[in-house]
């Protein structure tokens, strides 16, 4: 394995690690955004599941409560 190949592999490895760390950092924020448009029942039964329907009424209620 040549030096340039090793260097390229090292860079790819670093990029993979950075992407994984980025996903770990952004995931809680994604969960917050996703759960903000889920109905209460779906939030408490499965936090990480995608919403079956967008419950915009919670946003409207949060604006006035």
């Amino acid at each position, binding site marked *: 394995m040549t030096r340039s190949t090793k260097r390229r592999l090292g860079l790819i490895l670093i990029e993979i690690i950075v992407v994984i760390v980025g996903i770990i950092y952004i995931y809680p924020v994604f969960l*917050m955004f996703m759960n*903000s448009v889920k109905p209460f029942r779906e939030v408490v039964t499965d936090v990480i599941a995608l919403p079956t329907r967008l419950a915009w009424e919670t946003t409207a*209620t949060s604006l006035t409560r």
Partner: protein
Amino acid sequence: MNYWSLFSNNVIITVIGIAGIVFFSSFTAYILDRRQNKYTKFIHTLVITPMLIPFQTIMITLLKVMNVLHLSGSIWGLGIQYWGFGIPMATFIYFNFLKTIPHEIDESAKIDGASTIRTFFSVIFPLLKNVTITVVVLDVMWIWNDFLLPLLMVNSNSKTKTLVLSAYTFVGQFNTQWQYAMTAMVLAIVPSIIVFVLLQKYIVEGVVAGAVKG
């Protein structure tokens, strides 16, 4: 609680905090940089050392002091308190950048008859645009999303609550309305995200602006 009244509370607190931090720290850094002697070096150390003090260690005594000064329970009082916590870091950033601005600029303004205050506001402060934007973005993100200080100071009255505190009202001891809490949190952080996205290109410019002297 109404979103727009909470939003206006946040805006007032953030504007008061940012205005004070930018005004006092930029002017302090200017004087400390331009008049270097043993006294100003001592004051410089005194100004930036509070960066090392964690907020949690002084929050109880701060609350007592603010009660005595009748500044707790008021959004104006809360805004003023951010000056104390934001000025050390902002002064540090301004001071490092001011080293890169030549003293000849001050001297030419002085020859034209400008006072120190006039020189600062008319000549030097416009040159600090990038650093000021950096300080503003960092402090907006911090003050807008801050939880602990508003919880201590303005949580007792619903009229003085902030957006982040309102999200916390949906969290109870026996029952938590997660759907409203999540939505309230999203509504609370969206304005600060918008500010960050609009001004993010200035952050790196401002942070590295004073890094290389020459």
